[in-house]
């Protein structure tokens, strides 16, 4: 049997790591609820497994998504992950070819050169030693890039790089040492016993020319094994936990697991899958425009993982979803933030808060729900009411009296239980009215109606509904001079992707100028209701920066479809800022199509049922 004391650190490290991971993943699996557990089990016996494996190869090994963001960063991750994987795989093959019969313990391929110092006699030996040298070079290239990244992160498309924890430092240092030490060990061995190829052979003879290789090669193997052992020991407590966990994440996702309202083992898997690559940092407007550097996703996930999350970190984010959109691991960061916010609030004292009486439901075909923010931008609700009147729709203005609020701000503030009470009250009214379509002017309301209300009717944002009215010629938007830049509100973009309807509707009236910051890459207006902490100064900085980036100066209009975005941009814009509904009304007036007045009074009698 091939054995030497120095293999112990490595071997113990591997045993610890496998034991720890096995224990951890088993605990997570046991913690899943019944339906999720059966999803996982049946997933293993379905075609989904193959799709998952394909993604594991593309992402965990080749890092395709990071490549898409940035080639250099992608190459760094790829050369480390894929190179190392091949080193292990081909190393194993090599040692099995050479010793098909004898006992071949797992550490033998790792320390192959030590146990087979000069394998000239073996078949294929040149092919193998060349390949192994090439792979080592690839990995060393990755290590060198990682090293440089710490100092020149700009070249990697990253303005900021993540801060390090103590456990990470240990793992990071040993990871950087592993491959240079392997190079040294193999080179010294070549210097003493011959063998080695273009890398280890050449480097070995170079080193041997001025160093006592015969004395050094054995300590080098020790050092190599030690660095491996310590790395494996530190891995579960460092960011490198993401390496094995990302595989679990991809599998779970393909098996149909997702975030729930509460924390589940899937949440743990996601939290541990963050590689702290830092891609999310540069996407965050609060970082590049607002000057806030402590709320970004990677910090957030790290704090959650180490149980040190502070309320200000959690509630100081815009929930714009720009980071979700770029995360190469595809972590559902917004979902996790919602869970964290609820956890931070805990169970609140049982005070009744929505005991207010509600109006009667009116029978109608269509419900119009303006939303709190639209009530504070009355020109939008007036425009909408005019258009509904003009089109002759049988509608009910559900929150004309002010409404109960849709519940989403409450959810965003981490009070899901209370939000559910509000949702239930509104839901009852909506169902009672018998309407088939619910139209809202506020993207915040739209999202919660569409995702949380479980309604059996069509939920539409007014951009979508107005387009339908226009296409069925119930309203006739006219032509306006000039062009417009359209701003996608966060709540209509990335997650829900209402992109085409507003552009199509707008295109009927003006020329729409596109820009780099639209659709999935749209910018938050800075006025997000999800952010509790940001002060006016931060908000304004984000708004100004977004306005400049969208390059709307020189157009006639900046058009949006969210009352909050409108309010934000009005403060900084040097062009007219309009909601799309207002623009429709204006275009109709300009082209002399008949438009009915909204007839909305300033104050409305509150119509309530007693109790």
């Amino acid at each position, binding site marked *: 049997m091939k054995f030497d004391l120095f293999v112990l650190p490595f071997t113990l490290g591997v045993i610890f790591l496998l034991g720890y991971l096995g224990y951890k993943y088993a605990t997570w699996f046991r913690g899943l609820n019944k339906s999720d557990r059966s999803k996982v089990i049946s997933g293993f016996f379905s075609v989904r497994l193959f799709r998952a494996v394909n993604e594991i190869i593309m992402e965990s090994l080749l890092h395709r998504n990071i490549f898409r963001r940035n080639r250099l960063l992608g190459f760094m991750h790829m050369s480390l992950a894929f190179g190392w994987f091949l080193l292990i795989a081909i190393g194993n093959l090599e040692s099995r070819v050479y010793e098909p019969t004898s006992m071949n313990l797992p550490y033998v391929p790792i320390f192959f050169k030590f146990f087979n110092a000069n394998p000239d006699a073996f078949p294929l030996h040149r092919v193998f030693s060349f390949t192994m040298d090439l792979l080592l070079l690839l990995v060393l290239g990755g290590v060198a890039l990682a090293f440089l990244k710490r100092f020149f992160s700009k070249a990697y498309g990253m303005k900021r790089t993540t801060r390090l924890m103590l456990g990470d430092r240990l793992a990071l240092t040993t990871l950087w040492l592993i491959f240079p030490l392997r190079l040294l060990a193999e080179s010294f061995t070549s210097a003493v016993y011959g063998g080695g190829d273009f890398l280890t052979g050449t480097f070995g003879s170079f080193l041997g020319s001025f160093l006592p290789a015969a004395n050094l090669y054995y300590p080098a193997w020790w050092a190599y094994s030690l660095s491996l052992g310590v790395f494996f020991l530190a891995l579960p407590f460092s960011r490198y936990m993401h390496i094995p966990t990302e595989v679990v994440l991809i599998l779970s996702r393909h098996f149909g697991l997702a975030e729930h309202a509460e924390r589940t083992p899937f949440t743990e898997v996601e939290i541990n899958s963050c590689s702290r690559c830092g891609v999310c940092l540069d996407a965050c407007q609060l970082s590049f425009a607002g000057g806030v550097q402590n709320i970004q996703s990677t910090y957030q996930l790290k704090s959650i993982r180490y149980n040190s999350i502070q*309320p*200000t970190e959690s*509630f100081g984010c815009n929930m714009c979803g720009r980071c979700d959109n770029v995360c190469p691991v595809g972590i559902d960061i917004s979902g996790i933030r919602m869970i964290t916010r609820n956890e931070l*609030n*805990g169970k*609140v*004292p049982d*005070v009744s*808060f*929505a*005991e*207010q*009486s509600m109006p009667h439901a009116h029978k109608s075909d269509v419900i119009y729900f303006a939303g*709190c*923010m639209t*009530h*504070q931008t009355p020109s939008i609700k007036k425009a909408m009411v005019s258009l509904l009147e003009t089109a002759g729709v049988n509608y009910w203005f559900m929150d004309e009296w*002010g*409404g*109960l*609020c849709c*519940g989403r*701000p*409450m959810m*965003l*503030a981490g*009070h899901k239980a*209370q939000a559910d009470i*509000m949702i239930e009250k509104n839901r009852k009214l909506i169902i009672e009215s018998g309407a088939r379509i619910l139209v809202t002017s506020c993207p915040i309301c739209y999202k919660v109606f569409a995702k949380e209300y479980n309604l059996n009717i069509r939920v539409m944002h007014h951009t979508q509904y107005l387009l339908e009215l226009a296409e069925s010629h119930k309203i006739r938007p006219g032509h306006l001079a000039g062009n417009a830049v359209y701003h996608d509100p966060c709540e209509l973009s990335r997650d829900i992707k209402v992109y085409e309807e507003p552009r199509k509707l707008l295109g009927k009236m003006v020329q729409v100028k596109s820009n780099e910051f639209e659709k999935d890459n749209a910018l938050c207006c800075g006025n997000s*209701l999800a952010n*509790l*902490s*940001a*002060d*006016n100064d931060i908000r304004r900085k984000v708004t100004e920066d977004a306005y400049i980036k969208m390059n709307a100066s020189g157009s006639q209009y900046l058009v949006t479809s969210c009352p*909050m975005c409108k*309010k934000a941009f009005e403060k900084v814009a040097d062009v007219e800022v309009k909601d799309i509904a207002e623009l429709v009304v204006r275009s109709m007036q300009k082209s002399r199509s008949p438009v009915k007045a909204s007839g909305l009074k300033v104050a409305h009698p*509150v119509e*309530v049922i007693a109790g």
Partner: protein
Amino acid sequence: MINFGYKIQADRQVDYDAGNHRIFDFVRKSEPSIDWCMSCGTCASACTASASTEYSLCRLILNARRGMEDEILKSVYRCRFCGKCINACPRGVNTRNIVYLMQLAVTKISKHEI
């Protein structure tokens, strides 16, 4: 006592030292804009919750200033975070954060952290 035919009323002066100001201090530490509030009541007139329930942000802030914890507890969980008050406030007070921080303070008090 001699009956003069009238009673001396209880003292109606607000005693600012009588209350416990820890909630106000806690909020103010992270949200200094609470100091800008001039108790104008605009927030309450815009407020979704005030429209039909017993709740007023303006009063909440006053109660915090006076250290009236019982009053705060009665209404601090009634806010719906809808954001109307922020748009309405003429002083640019970060109103929702004040409500949130008051809630946080209440939680912390129940855990004996402040």
